């Protein structure tokens, strides 16, 4: 589904990612751990194609095609969807955006308890948790093949993490066998909280613009919790 090969990314003349490799197969769910400022969001932004993030070396292959030069909207049309960590406020009724996405607005608005929000301006006066639900709502209606979720659980209370996870699991067809699943996901998580609700196949740890180790999500999380990110780099086989 997705192959990021030796990606070097800079923004504003600053090198942020320094040779990142990430390969996500069809039906797989990967999580990325890493301290603040390590470059996690940058990686998703580069995959999505946000123009301020320049790829100076390496490639991003999606469904077998190098998408490095495709505009954002084309990548979205090809099947990449993103839930932003901090989405902007926009003077535009959410409904007017959702109508453009050709999906089941009613069903997901109901499941995510966002029915009253879709008549409001996007993210205007939304709490942190409401913004996260609004992001999941949009991505659910969009139904992309690759979900890029940037800290979907941060600032969300227990009950709503449960609601969000339910929708994500449904999108990821977690009730089917892995070989039958069509969608994949890359989930950034600071706390690892989301792992209690969503099964992931592989975890990566990012530090200072590099992926320094990978392994089974629970084990990696344990190591980080016990010894911090630094030790995780020591125990890793590298990449």
């Amino acid at each position, binding site marked *: 589904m997705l192959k990021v090969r030796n990606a070097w990314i800079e923004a504003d003349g600053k090198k942020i990612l320094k040779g990142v490799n990430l390969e996500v197969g069809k039906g797989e769910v990967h999580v990325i751990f890493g301290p603040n400022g390590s470059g996690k969001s940058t990686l998703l932004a580069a995959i*999505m194609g*946000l*123009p301020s993030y320049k790829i100076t070396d390496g490639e991003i292959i999606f469904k077998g095609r190098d998408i490095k030069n495709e*505009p*954002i*909207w084309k990548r*979205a*049309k090809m099947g990449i*969807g*993103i839930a*932003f960590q901090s*989405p*902007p406020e*926009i*003077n*535009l*009724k959410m409904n*007017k*955006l959702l109508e*453009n*996405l050709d999906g089941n607005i009613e069903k997901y608005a109901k499941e995510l308890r966002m029915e009253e929000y879709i008549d409001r*301006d996007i993210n205007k006066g939304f709490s942190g948790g409401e913004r996260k639900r609004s992001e999941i709502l*949009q991505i659910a209606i*969009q139904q992309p093949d690759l979900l890029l979720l940037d800290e979907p659980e941060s600032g969300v209370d227990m009950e709503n993490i449960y609601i969000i996870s339910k929708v994500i699991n449904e999108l990821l067809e977690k009730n089917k066998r892995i070989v039958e699943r069509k969608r994949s996901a890359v989930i950034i998580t600071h706390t690892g909280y989301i792992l209690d609700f969503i099964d992931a196949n592989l975890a990566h740890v990012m530090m200072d613009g590099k992926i320094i180790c990978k392994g089974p999500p629970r084990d990696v999380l344990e190591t980080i919790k016990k010894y911090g990110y630094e030790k995780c780099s020591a125990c890793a086989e590298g990449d």
Partner: protein
Amino acid sequence: MDELKEVGFDESMGRAASFLVEDDEVKRIKKKEKIEIMPIEDAHDKYGKLFFKVVDKNKDKYTRLAYEKGQTGYFIRVPSNMEIMLPIQTAFLLKSNNFKQILHNVVVLEENAKLHMISGCTSMPDLKGMHSSVTEFYLKKNSYLTYTMIHRWAKETEVYPRTGAILDENSTFVSNYIALTPAKMIDSYPVAILNKNAIARFYSILYAREKAKFDVGAIAKLNGEGAKAEIISRIISYNSNVISRGLIEGNANNSKGHMECSGLIIKNGIIHTIPELKSTVENVDLSHEAAIGKIAQEQLNYLMARGIEEEEAKSLLIRGFLDVSIKGLPPHLNKVISRVVDLKTKATA
């Protein structure tokens, strides 16, 4: 006729009364409720001495014209204690090439009366012409008027409305001006004079395009204690030139005024905002804020990340920027405005 529907004049909708002028001819007067509505020339005998009390007839060339030649227009009077739920619709259509419309309108709300008006002004496509008018509003004690004016012009039309309102104690005037249109010139600077505890709100939703020139704004004079005014504008200048003025004068204690202007510049557009606050007494609370910019790249990226192409994303942002819901306006009139915004912003980014 689509031209009329696009400015809110729609006879298939529920309306308390209708008044239609083409060039200088009153084409239609219909009414359901016990409102007084008649051509201005018929009202001269009965009410004439009231006229030009709130707009100075010698203010400029256009007020003189209206005073001397303004035989066309409406007179509307709502008797005291009468609340009209459905809006009154009026429309002025420029139909003949090079025609100069010279209008005079008067609206009187007696004590405790309540009325919503929707007033459309438009021209047939590709006409040259001029529309000039004096419109006077007399709001008596405790009355409540919302006045929604929608303009839609051809590129070569010149437009000079002169509007004045006098608000007696506790009355409310909500004035909405929607102009999503080209025009050779729109020059309009309505004035409201507020007495004790009166409230005036001016909302402008402007989308100047195709090298249009707008010089527009509002003045509120807070002459009575506790009077309140708000002047709020959303302006897009698309390869056009917009001057947005505003003046709030605090002339009485405990009065309050706020001005807000947000502008969006597209393709070499110009916006010049000139907000003025003036206070002649100590105890007033006046403020203004303004922000002008271009379409925010972050917002554009956000929409494009949902698979919306750049041009469509821009047009959505333009639509969203202009789609404001106006306080104190009944929902169906807010919907009329939304529809006009939708129609006029489709695929124009």
